[in-house]
């Protein structure tokens, strides 16, 4: 199993009440605090590299939850500051991009600088992102796939310019330099929440599929949809390396200490989001519009959030404890979903101090990571080992 260190780079020093995203003004952002946070988050990635983790980065906009607003910039920094780990951007919000060719260029450049350590994710983007990007909520899937297909064609065309006149973007001279370091192109990842049809699209193209903070039953359903699509299309049975999952993770010497880490991570839950931003008309299904109009929550993870830490632990979305316990929980999760090849560990969150983060990362890196690496693709290995 491959393990990827991840922090959303939060800016936690905001008012206790009121919105955290979309409408919170940057008057509450202190640039010097921000500078220290960026420094510290990058230091943690450098430590992760030394401990043997790979790296995952994302981006969000107009939010205190994530000041990593430009994932490619962070990946570029890590391409120079780290030496060993693979660098995963998960992902480029391609549905929200006005210029997908710029994305193809950025990724190609980082791939070359890093000597082929880049893995390129593309995401449809969460609901809050529609507002800063002004993306039509009803067209996000179309934009995602048109954008991904265009980037892939741009990466793999080497005999000079081609043109593109599609639904969302027009180009007369696409000719991407540099060529990607990895040939024919870096590994591609796509995320998904609940749309099984979209998962099948990922499967047919042979990309890696990632799911975040969902209960294990839902994750298994999504992975099954992927496996089914391969079977239906006569494609080889996908191995665990095709699948990724991101839980909150905190590792400590004692269960009591682990609980403190869990509390920090849970900052992300109960995000005080307003219904017009969390359930915009068009982003999800007709049922979601009806639910919103009737004042009900349409979030597929609402029950998980309402259940809090105990339910999240039970469902595998919050994996905390001593190294032995963390290892067992991960293996159990992998077995429940039919084999997990990539664990994206969100092991920093909210106001979790640097020292706590380092302690948890180091314990995981020394006590858990070697055992997971040894598992390889042998996901049936029992936790008792």
């Amino acid at each position: 199993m491959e393990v990827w260190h991840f922090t959303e780079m939060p800016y936690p020093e905001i008012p206790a009440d009121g919105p955290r995203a979309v409408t919170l003004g940057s008057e509450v952002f202190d640039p010097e605090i921000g500078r220290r946070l960026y420094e510290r988050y990058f230091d943690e990635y450098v430590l992760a590299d030394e401990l043997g983790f790979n790296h995952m980065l994302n981006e969000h906009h107009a939010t205190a939850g994530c000041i990593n607003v430009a994932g490619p910039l962070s990946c570029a920094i890590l391409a120079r500051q780290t030496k060993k780990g693979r660098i995963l951007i998960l992902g480029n919000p391609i549905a929200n991009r006005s210029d997908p060719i710029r994305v193809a260029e950025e990724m190609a450049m980082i791939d070359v600088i890093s000597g082929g350590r880049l893995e390129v994710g593309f995401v449809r983007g969460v609901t809050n992102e529609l507002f800063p990007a002004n993306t039509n909520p009803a067209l996000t899937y179309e934009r995602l796939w048109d954008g991904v297909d265009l980037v892939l064609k741009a990466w793999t065309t080497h005999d000079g310019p081609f043109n593109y006149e599609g639904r969302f973007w027009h180009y007369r001279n696409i000719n991407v330099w540099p060529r990607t370091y990895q040939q024919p192109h870096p590994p591609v990842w796509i995320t998904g929440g609940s749309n099984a049809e979209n998962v099948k699209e990922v499967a047919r193209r042979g990309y890696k599929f990632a799911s975040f903070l969902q209960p294990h039953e839902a994750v298994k359903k999504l992975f099954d949809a992927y496996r089914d699509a391969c079977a239906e299309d006569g494609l080889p049975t996908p191995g665990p390396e095709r699948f990724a999952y991101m839980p909150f993770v905190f590792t400590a010497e004692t269960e009591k200490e682990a609980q403190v880490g869990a509390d920090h991570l849970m900052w992300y839950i109960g995000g005080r989001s307003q219904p017009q931003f969390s359930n915009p008309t068009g982003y999800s299904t007709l049922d979601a519009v009806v639910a919103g109009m009737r004042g009900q929550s349409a979030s597929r993870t609402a029950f998980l959030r309402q259940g809090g830490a105990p339910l999240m632990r039970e469902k595998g979305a919050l994996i905390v404890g001593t190294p032995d316990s963390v290892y067992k929980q991960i293996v159990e999760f992998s077995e429940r979903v039919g084999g997990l090849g990539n664990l994206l560990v969100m092991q920093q969150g909210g106001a979790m101090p640097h020292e706590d983060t380092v302690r948890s990362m180091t314990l995981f890196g020394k006590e858990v990571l070697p055992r997971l690496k040894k598992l390889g693709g042998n996901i049936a290995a029992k936790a008792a080992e």
Partner: protein
Amino acid sequence: MDVSLTQSPSVMTLNGIDVAVTRQGSGAPLLLLTNEDGTEAGSKLVDLLAKDFEVIVPDAPGFGASPDDERLTNVDDIAYLYLDLIDHLKLRDVRLVGFSLGGWIAAEMATKSCQNLGRIALVDSYGIKIGGPYDRDIADIYVLPRDDLAARTYGDPSRAPDFATMDEAAVRVIARNRLATVRYCWEPYMHNPKLLGRLHRISVPTFVVWGEKDGIVTPAYGRAYAAAIPGAVFETMAGAGHLPQLEQPERAAAMLRDFLKN
């Protein structure tokens, strides 16, 4: 003997596009273009107008009883579709009435061709940009909190429908209309940057009616709309918000009838 008395929609195909059309009443043809929720359909307003006119209510693709059709992507497409509908039904001297989004569609149609139009009434219509890039000419219904939205939409916010207690099938129809509206109108938000400069092409008598308490598109916006249409008459309705035809159907029907009967 009068087939136009039927109220159930029939689906017709125009250049391969399926459009559901409901016809009610008899008399001169009145093409009624609903607001984005489609809530004039089957309302008291239509019953009242159907006493003097044959009221024809089409559903654009994705709305009401019309299936989705991804080939249509903006209001311009709907305007051409409805001009095709007028041709297909061989309508002449059409009274064209549009509410909110329907008013925007009506204005687009009239700037393209007034050939078969007799008179036009636009009620609290979207469609034009009058201010600069930093001006919010049309309140953002996708961002406003629900209470604020109700206060801006209704002269008397207690008239706002309670979707929590409304029959679920009815809520689903409105929800689907809202999905379609997002698809057509998210960007540019509820307007066509070119429309204002084309309104001078409207060559038939035009009546612009506005709820004086409309907080989505204000009466000042309505006056600017009317001022750009040659000879247009502008009137407000006291006590009404963005949907005067639903808040005060008798009064709205009377005002429209007086103008459209001529």
